C-alpha cells in the first residue's frame, strides 16, 4: 500500500485539492459564524461531551435498552460482529424479500464495510441517492470529505460525468445538474424495494434513530420503499430524547454552520397501523467491526465522535493534502486516530504522523475530543509495535544519551557551533541524508555559538 506521504505528494497543489481547500475553509468560516451567534454553544459542547462519555461508559446497557425499544415498536434488530456478518444479514434479507433495487442514503459505515459491493455481488442494484455519493458512485471515485463527498470535484467534471452516465446534453450549471439527478433518482426512490441508511445518532429510551440530511434523500429512501435497513455503528447512540437534542444542536452548527440541516428526521419503528405511508419493515443492523476493541483500548475517546467533519475543515494538513491522501474511509484528524485503532495498526501507522499537533481540531470538536492527545498515543503505539518511523530511533536514542549528560551536551553544542561557523554566509542551503527533507524547501541558519557558552563567559 502507498504511504500517506506518497499519496499527499501526488495530490498537493492539484485543482482537486484546491477545491477541497476552498470548501473546507467555507465550512470552517460558516461554523465560526454559527458559533458566534449561538450563546449556548460552549455549554452545549460541554454537555455533548458528557453525554457521549456517559453513554460509552454504559454502552452495553443503552444498546440493550435501544434494541428492546426498537423491537417493541415493531422493528427488528441484528447485532453484527463484523462487516461480513452485517453484509450477510442485509444480502440475505434482500434475497428473502426478493429485493431488486436499493436506494441508499449516505452512510460512512456502509462504505467501511463495503455493503454496496456485497449487494451488487448478490445481483441487487444499489443506487446512492446523496448527490455527492451518486457522483462518487458513477465516477468510481472515493469521497474526499466525511460529509461532503465530492468537495474535490469541479462542476465541469460533474457535467461530463452526467452527460456520459445519463445520456443528456452537457451542462455544468449546478442547478441544471441537480435537476438531472433529481429526475433520475425520483423514479428510483419510488420503485425501490429497500432503502438503506446510516444512523447519525440513535436514542436508547425510545428506540429511535436520527437521520440528518439536507437533500431529502434520507427521508425519501426511508419512506418510499417497503423495507428500511438502518446500519448503525454500535457507538452512535445516546440515552434519551433530551440528550439527542443536545447532539442535534451542535451537529449541524459544527458541520456546515447551519442551525439545523434541512431535514432532521427521527424514525421510531416502521409504519404504524393507521399511518398512510412509510416502510412496513424496519431493520436496525448494529455493527461492531472493531469498535469494541477501540472501546477497551487507549484511544477509546475517539468513539465519542458524531461525524460532523469540523476537524477536517479546521485541519491545515487536511486542507493542504485533501481527503484522498489519507487513503482511508475516515479522513482528517478523526480518521488519523480512528483508522490505526479500528483497522490494522501496521497499515495505518503513518496517519497519526500526518499532523503538526496544532490543536485546531480540538478547538472545533463539538464533543471536545482531545484529538492531539490521541494522535500522540497512536504514535506511541506505532513505535511500540515497531511500525512507526523507526529510522528515528537511533538518532533519538543517541540524543537522549547526550541530553542526559550535561557535559556531553555542552560538548555537542561546541561541536555544532564549530561546524556551523564553516558556513561563512551563516546559512546552510543543503543537507545530506535525512537533512535533505529540511533543505529541500528551506534554508537552515547555521549555529555559530551557544547560549551555554555565552552564560559561562559572562561569569556570575
Amino acid at each position, binding site marked *: 500500500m502507498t504511504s*500517506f*506521504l506518497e499519496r*499527499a*505528494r501526488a495530490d*498537493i*497543489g492539484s485543482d482537486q485539492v484546491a477545491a477541497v481547500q476552498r470548501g473546507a475553509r467555507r465550512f470552517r468560516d460558516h461554523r465560526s459564524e454559527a458559533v458566534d451567534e449561538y450563546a449556548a454553544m460552549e455549554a452545549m459542547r460541554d454537555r455533548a461531551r458528557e453525554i457521549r462519555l456517559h453513554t460509552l461508559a454504559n454502552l452495553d446497557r443503552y444498546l440493550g435498552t435501544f434494541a428492546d425499544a426498537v423491537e417493541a415498536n415493531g422493528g427488528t434488530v441484528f447485532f453484527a460482529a463484523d462487516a461480513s456478518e452485517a453484509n450477510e444479514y442485509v444480502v440475505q434479507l434482500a434475497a428473502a424479500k426478493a429485493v431488486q433495487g436499493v436506494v441508499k442514503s449516505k452512510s460512512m459505515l456502509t462504505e467501511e464495510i463495503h455493503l454496496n459491493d456485497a449487494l451488487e455481488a448478490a445481483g441487487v442494484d444499489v443506487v446512492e441517492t446523496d448527490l455527492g455519493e451518486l457522483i462518487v458512485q458513477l465516477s468510481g471515485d472515493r469521497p474526499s470529505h466525511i460529509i461532503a463527498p465530492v468537495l474535490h470535484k469541479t462542476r465541469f467534471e460533474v457535467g461530463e460525468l452526467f452527460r456520459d452516465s445519463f445520456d443528456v446534453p452537457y451542462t455544468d450549471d449546478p442547478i441544471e445538474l441537480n435537476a438531472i439527478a433529481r429526475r433520475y433518482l425520483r423514479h428510483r426512490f419510488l420503485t425501490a424495494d429497500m432503502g438503506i441508511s446510516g444512523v447519525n445518532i440513535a436514542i436508547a429510551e425510545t428506540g429511535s434513530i436520527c437521520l440528518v440530511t439536507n437533500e431529502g434523500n434520507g427521508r425519501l429512501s426511508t419512506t418510499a420503499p417497503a423495507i428500511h435497513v438502518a446500519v448503525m455503528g454500535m457507538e452512535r447512540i445516546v440515552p434519551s430524547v433530551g440528550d439527542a437534542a443536545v447532539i442535534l444542536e451542535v451537529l449541524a452548527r459544527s458541520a456546515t454552520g447551519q442551525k439545523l440541516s434541512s431535514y432532521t428526521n427521527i424514525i421510531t419503528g416502521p409504519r404504524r397501523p393507521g399511518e398512510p405511508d412509510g416502510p412496513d419493515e424496519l431493520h436496525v443492523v448494529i455493527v461492531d467491526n472493531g469498535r469494541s476493541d477501540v472501546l477497551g483500548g487507549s484511544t477509546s475517546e475517539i468513539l465519542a465522535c458524531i461525524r460532523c467533519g469540523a476537524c477536517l475543515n479546521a485541519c*491545515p*494538513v487536511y486542507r*493542504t*493534502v485533501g481527503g484522498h491522501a489519507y487513503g482511508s474511509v475516515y479522513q482528517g484528524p478523526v480518521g488519523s486516530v480512528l483508522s490505526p485503532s479500528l483497522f490494522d495498526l501496521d497499515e495505518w501507522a503513518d496517519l497519526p*504522523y*500526518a*499532523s*503538526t*499537533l*496544532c*490543536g*485546531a481540531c480540538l*478547538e472545533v470538536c463539538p464533543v471536545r475530543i482531545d484529538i492531539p492527545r490521541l494522535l*500522540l498515543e*497512536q*504514535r*506511541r*503505539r506505532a*513505535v*511500540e509495535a515497531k511500525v512507526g*518511523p523507526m529510522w*528515528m*530511533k537511533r538518532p*533519538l*536514542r543517541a*540524543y*537522549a544519551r*547526550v*541530553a*542526559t549528560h*550535561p557535559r556531553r*551536551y555542552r560538548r555537542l*553544542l561546541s561541536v*555544532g557551533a564549530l561546524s556551523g561557523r564553516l558556513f561563512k554566509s551563516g546559512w546552510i*542551503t543543503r543537507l545530506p541524508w*535525512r*537533512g535533505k*527533507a*529540511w533543505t*529541500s*524547501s*528551506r*534554508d*537552515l*541558519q547555521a*549555529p555559530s*555559538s*551557544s*547560549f*551555554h*557558552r*555565552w*552564560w*559561562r563567559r559572562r561569569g556570575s
Partner: protein
Amino acid sequence: MATVQLFVTCLVDAFAPLVGEAVVDVLERLGVTVEFPQDQTCCGQPAFNAGFHPEARRMAAHTVRVLDATEGTIVVPSGSCTDMIIHHAPELMDNGSELHAAALRVAARTREFTQFLVDDLGISDLSATGGGVCAVHHSCHGLRNLGVHDQPEQLLDSVDGLDRVELEGSTECCGFGGLFAVEMPDVSAAMLEHKLDAIESSGADVVVGGDISCLMHIGGGLHRRGSTIEARHIAEVLDQ
C-alpha cells in the same frame, strides 16, 4: 524583585543563543534576577512527539531533576517547550513516583516568556524602541495549549516606533510541527508556502513569534525565497 530560572531550550541554545541573551537582558532590565541551571539540556519534546516515550522520558526526567533542584518561576522562551514541561512531562513519569511529584512541582512553576511578563509581572510596556512594521505569528502550542495570544501583541504594541499589522491566517499552523517538518516534508513545505505568501502580502518587514522552531522554519523559507523580511523571536524585538 523576583528571581527566575531560565530554561532556554535546546533550539535556542544551539541555533539562536542571541534570543536567550535577549530574554536575560529584558528580564534584568526589569529588575528580575536570572539564574541559569547549567546542567539543563532538552525537555524531550522531539522524542515525545515522535512517539518514542522511553527516550523522551529520559530527557524529561533529566530536565525535571535539574529544574526541581531550583526555586522560583521557570521562564521558557518557547510555547511548545512550556507545553511539554507542563502537560506532558508529568505523564511520562510513573504515577506516584518521586519523579512524578517532582515533575508536577516543576510544571506548576513553569511559564512561557510573554505570559510571565504580561500576566505575572503585569508589565506590557518595556520602553523598547523599534521601527518598521511587524506581524505576529501565533505558534500553535502556545496559542491553543497555554492561551498565549494577546500577550505578544500587547508587548509589541508598546514598542515605540514599531507598527503592527495583522497576518492573514495568523492562527493557522506554519507547518513546522517538530519532526513533521522532515517526516512529511512535502506537506510541511506546502503549508510553509501558504504561510510565506500571507507574510509577504501583509506589508510587514518582520514576522515575530514566540517559538524559535516556527521561526527557523519560516525564516528558512523566507531566506530561500530571497525575501528581505526577517523572522525574529519576540525577545529580540523587545530588547531593542
